[in-house]
């Protein structure tokens, strides 16, 4: 590239830059607005007209609720007309305009269409607690066909229905929304609600009023017999669990039954309520016992203590030791009517030797338990045999095995 060409390019660029600068010079020409209104309705076309003396036609910049846009005018008989596009003229709210590169500006307001076509309604939370303190909230936006929110002061009615009672609250749109608090009732149930404005209504909404915290309750008990056979089931039922307003608690509420045994052990069983009643099941103990049972809804409600006594199924049993076969046979184990005790009673065998103690546990079958003594684990020698079943312990001392 020669130096000449370089100069030429620089000169051209310099001249061009003048051209660009000239655009920034303010118009000195006059633009007179013709028939400008300060308020329009959302469904009408808007056209801004200016009488002009200048030769140039500046663009019109419009700022509306959702943003800004540029409109180019067309000239008709010394006037310039700007057609405001529909996406601006349909949206309610304040609109400001100015002619680009001039000092001319102004504003107008677009009113929403007064014809309500939709009721946008929100409700939450969908469930509340029956205590006259908890509440939910409903919010409504009456809308015209362009999705414009109605003007402040538009009347909105909220209709409520619970069981047989209906009520209505009349409110107005304020700051674009109409809202109401829905306070819970003292009774559980569903509150149906809807809102309406003008001729339009929302769809049906539902707020569920659920029971509050349960209060103390009582316990009842049931069993087939009062013997400690380790087989039958004892059941404990709560009275109907209710909250402080006498509502039945929701189904599925968990109740834990704690059973304190005579030895101080805490047994437990759990149950969930159906129609307010929870029924816990517990297997009978295997030995003489006195149970004290309490039902608890954790940290909220508790029952009275119920006492349950269990008598032993038998007073004694036989132990037979077979040295050749190395077996210890316990039984027959007979229950309270002299029947064979149901299978599965736990029998424990404690073999106390000189050096070590061996412990075995087995379940009865046909009223009998046979312990087979493994030669490798229990070497030949003298042992004290201690058998525990049904809470009764029998000992055979110094048995050669």
């Amino acid at each position, binding site marked *: 590239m020669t130096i000449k060409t370089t100069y030429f390019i620089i000169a051209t660029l310099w001249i061009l830059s003048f051209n660009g600068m000239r655009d920034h010079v303010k118009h000195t020409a006059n633009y007179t607005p013709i028939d400008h209104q300060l308020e329009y309705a959302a469904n009408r076309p808007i056209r801004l007209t200016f009488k002009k003396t200048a030769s140039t036609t500046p663009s019109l910049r419009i700022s509306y609720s959702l943003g800004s846009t540029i409109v180019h005018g067309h000239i008709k008989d010394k006037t310039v007309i700007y057609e405001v596009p529909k996406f601006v003229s349909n949206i309610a709210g304040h609109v400001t305009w100015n002619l680009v590169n001039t000092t001319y500006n102004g504003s107008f307001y677009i009113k929403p269409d007064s014809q309500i076509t939709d009721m946008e309604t*929100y*409700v*939450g*939370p*969908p*469930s509340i*607690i029956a205590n006259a303190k*908890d509440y939910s909230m409903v919010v409504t936006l009456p809308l015209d066909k362009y999705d414009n929110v109605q003007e402040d002061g538009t009347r909105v009615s909220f209709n409520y229905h619970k069981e047989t009672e209906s009520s209505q609250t009349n409110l107005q749109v304020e700051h674009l929304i109409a809202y109401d608090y829905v306070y819970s009732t003292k009774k559980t149930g569903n509150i149906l609600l809807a809102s309406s404005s003008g001729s339009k209504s929302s769809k049906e909404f539902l707020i569920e009023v*659920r029971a509050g*915290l*349960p209060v*103390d309750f009582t316990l009842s008990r049931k069993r*087939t017999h009062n013997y400690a056979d380790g*087989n*039958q*089931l004892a059941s404990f039922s709560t009275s109907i669990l209710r909250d402080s307003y006498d509502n039945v*608690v*929701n*189904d*599925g*509420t*968990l109740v*834990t039954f*704690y059973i304190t*045994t005579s*030895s*101080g*052990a*805490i*047994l*437990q*069983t*759990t*149950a*969930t*309520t*159906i129609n307010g009643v929870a029924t816990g*099941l*517990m*297997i009978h*103990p*295997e030995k003489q016992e006195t149970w004290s049972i*309490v039902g*608890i*809804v*954790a*940290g*909220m*409600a*508790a029952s009275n203590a119920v006492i349950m006594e269990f008598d032993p199924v038998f007073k004694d049993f036989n132990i037979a030791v077979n040295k050749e076969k190395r077996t210890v046979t316990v039984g027959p184990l007979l229950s309270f009517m002299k029947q064979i005790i*149901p*299978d*599965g009673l*736990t029998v424990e065998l404690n073999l106390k030797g000189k050096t070590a103690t061996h412990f075995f*546990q087995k379940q009865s*079958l046909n009223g009998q338990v046979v312990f087979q003594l*493994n*030669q*490798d*684990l229990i070497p030949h020698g003298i042992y004290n045999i201690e058998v525990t079943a049904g809470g009764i312990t029998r000992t055979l001392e110094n048995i050669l095995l």
Partner: protein
Amino acid sequence: MKLKQKTNKLLIAALVIGIAFHGSAIFFTLESTYDALIHLFFAEHYATSWFEPWNYKWYTGFTVMSYPPLVHQCIALLSYVGGLKFGLFTVALIAIILFITGVYRFSLLITASRKAAGYAALLAVFSSSFVETLHVFGQLPSIIGISVLMHSLPEIYLWLKTGAYRYYFTSLSLIAVTVTSHHVTPIFGMIFFIFPLIGMVIMDHARAQVSSFKEVRFGIFFNSFLKLFKRIVGFGFSSLVIIVGCILPYWINTKNNPITQVPIPHGSRDNFLEVTSSGLVFFLIPWGILLVILPYIFFRYYSKRFLFFGISITILTVLGTGGTTPIPKIVLGENAFNILTLDRFTLWASIMSIPLLGEFAYRFMHGDIRELIQGKLGAMYHRLTGAVLAGLFVFMTIFTMTLGYFRPSQPATIKMLPIVNFLNQDQHDHWRYLTLGFGDQMAWLAAQTSALSVDGNYHSARRLPELTTRPIERLENSKFKGVEGIGSLQQFLTVPEKYNLKYIFSNDKFYDPMLYFCGWQRLEQLENGIMVWEKMNVPPLSNILPLVDVPQWQKILWGIIPVLTVIIAFLLNIQLLLTRMLKYKIRKMPAYLRNIDAYTPFKSKLLHTIHIWALLLFIVTCYGMYTFYLKNTTQRTPENVVLAYYDAIDFKEFEKAYLYLNPKSGLELNQYMLQISVTDGLLSSYAKLDNIETTVLKQTQNTARLRVETKWITPLEKIQKTEYLIAIKQDDKWFIEPEAIETDLPPNQLFTENKTVFYNQGRRRISTEQTYHEDILKQPSLEILNARLVENKNHYFIIGEVQNIDNVPADVVLKGTLYDENNVQLASYNSKFVVKHKLMPKEISSFKISFEGIAWNNTNDSIPKSFNPDEYTPVNFKNKPAVFNIQAAGNVANTDLYKGIAISNLSINKGLIKGQLFNSGTQELTVPQLIISYYDSNKKLVWVDYNFLQEAVRPQRKKNFEFQLLMDTQINILSTNMSNCFVNGLPNESLAEKITGNRSANTAFNILQKTDGGTFPFIKLETNAYIGIPK
């Protein structure tokens, strides 16, 4: 010299048989190989986004520039014609043709005999190493790479020998195709194939100066080397440029993302004598029949002309022995040894041997060997030997081919369509998913769906630290990877929101208890039997996902060059190819066929060596089979029968297990099967036998007493069990005495139970729009009753109690975060096993949040050898935690709400707690869990622990439990400040005040159990259970 050539009928036969044999077999084998579906997945990537190397589907995104693209792009191109699988099989067919012709050309180069080369091609069709690589491993790029490399060898020879530029270009074009299909092949091919080839060219050049190879001395050799030096260097440098240039983005990617992963154990690095299965797969099968004629191969390759091939094959053979000898480790160095899979060396050694196998076959059937054997040992012997060799050869082929049938490496074929449909429906693909127990079929699923997974099947591309720091290939099969695998999986399951993981497709019920106790719930069983699990409270993926971008030129290079190399290679070689194939023009004899010396006569010494070698092999095989027999004869010794029994139990072959039980014990098969059918639980249904040690305590002629110590891996914890068994000998066979069974009988035959069920409509209106406002349920309110930060043996935990204070069942997610004194975040984790994830209204659960670090993140940490799924790596704290934060989230739950678990018959003696779990309801408690809370003398919670019961509890029945309570553990309480506890994003205190503000102070939360001493005077027991089959 010009020669009118005839078509090589052996080659034609090889091609016809090869295509017919492999072409039909691939339809039954290829899809269940290890690699084929992975290549299919990559192909799908190119088919949908050819120029974009970033793939979002695996490992939260990875780049496909981590593997040479040619084969994948070819499949992708063909997939436009007939779908992905069409592409896969077509490319496999091309690979077969390339391999057979490649072997032929390579053999022709080495043996300089069209007959021998023809035999080599024919034998290559059935060679066990090729069959294994194609039909068992499915390594298509590797096969294509080595095949094209073999095609390039004659061209390289001709360039070096003649200096004609056309050969320079053809050889480079073929090298380019090799490198774009498989990167490792040309690099090692350079060393092990091309270097010896260069040596051979120099030898031939030197030979031309003198009248026989004997006269080639070092001086002459060196002279020839200098003469050829320019061409060698020219070729070497050009091929280096080709190797680097053609897949430049690959090298850039490798440099930018070096493989910093913990090496994954590979069978090819095992000691083959110790791990015989690896020895079989990575040594015996690839070598196959070649082992028998190994002396011949070495003898030939160590002749002067092939000297360098001799050295090369020696190195390959030794490297291929893996960890059997220490040599490979020393030669390659610790690092390379642990990254490379060494089976490829054996593959190359076997391929290098094929020409000589062909030559041997030719000489054995038509040449001097036949004459020698027939002359020395008789025609009968020759025929017999031939039959034995052929028989062995065929046996090896069939054996290799059917390996996948007898020992399936993959789970049964899964119908993917229901899963694909599930992911496409209802915006399920807005979350990531994970498959469990799919094997390599997960790649096929990934290819079919647009949904993203956290897992992946190309381990070099793993990016998440949870994966790269552990030697696991994928989460999918983590149960086979012991602690590393299950530990890694547990981290993903515990904190799934980290990766937006919401759905799990489980094809292996082994993982189910872990999913449950990590807080997942079953959604539905798809029609193909796959169980879908989901996790609540996981946010969907963001619309824009992060990617590691590469410059545009790399993308264009990557998309264009590989296919271009094929086109160029095709254009350059087409003329030669056509002349060779159609023989329309009399062609000059190639240089490597011109100066043929007669074979060195096959000496008796070599024959003897082969015989001795074969005898040795025979003895080793017999010995191997004998030891195999001794170890595997199930009822030969008491130990064997115990081993066989446990093996059968482990694989759920109960009828087989029954055969090992004493037939005179009176236990009927029906009775036994019935007993098995009612036994369930962690140990019998979810455990994998890890180790078994049998000790004979006492043995007489017909009786033995044994102590059996078994170790089981379960998804939740490791179980050790010691059992004493009696074995009885009858009719020379040992049997096991069956164990006593539980006899407990529930009182009622028919049992009725009322329960409340909950049903969530989900999307009420069938619409693809975002879920309607009114369809969304209120999040159940929870209350964190108490929480504290505690320290136990330098580990930090948040413990506490949470209650569902709402009226609907809640799924509970607890996220704990620790901060130091300056409020700098130290660690964040979710509660894992120690919380009841599902709470009924008003139910309480104790919880403990442990802070797991990413295990072995510090590479200096030693990875424990023993397996313990319960073990975890605590976070390494820089500062002492001082402040904690809990974010609790409740969501409406409607599954896993069973509460019919009672604790009865409880007693505590010297810290040993004994009791019974009684199942008071109608569902079977498959894996019961006890959560134990420890309290101080003020009845304040100080520690929470848990225990799993090994056996299931059937409805209306009881099961004993016993475990040791903690007696004198020192727990330091660091903070009891609960001001940073939040529920559903709201402050815990104010939310609780609103709902439970009127709790009466007198009402108890529970009744605590007194202990008999120790640091903790009170405990609380809570029950939870995984129900395997909810009814």
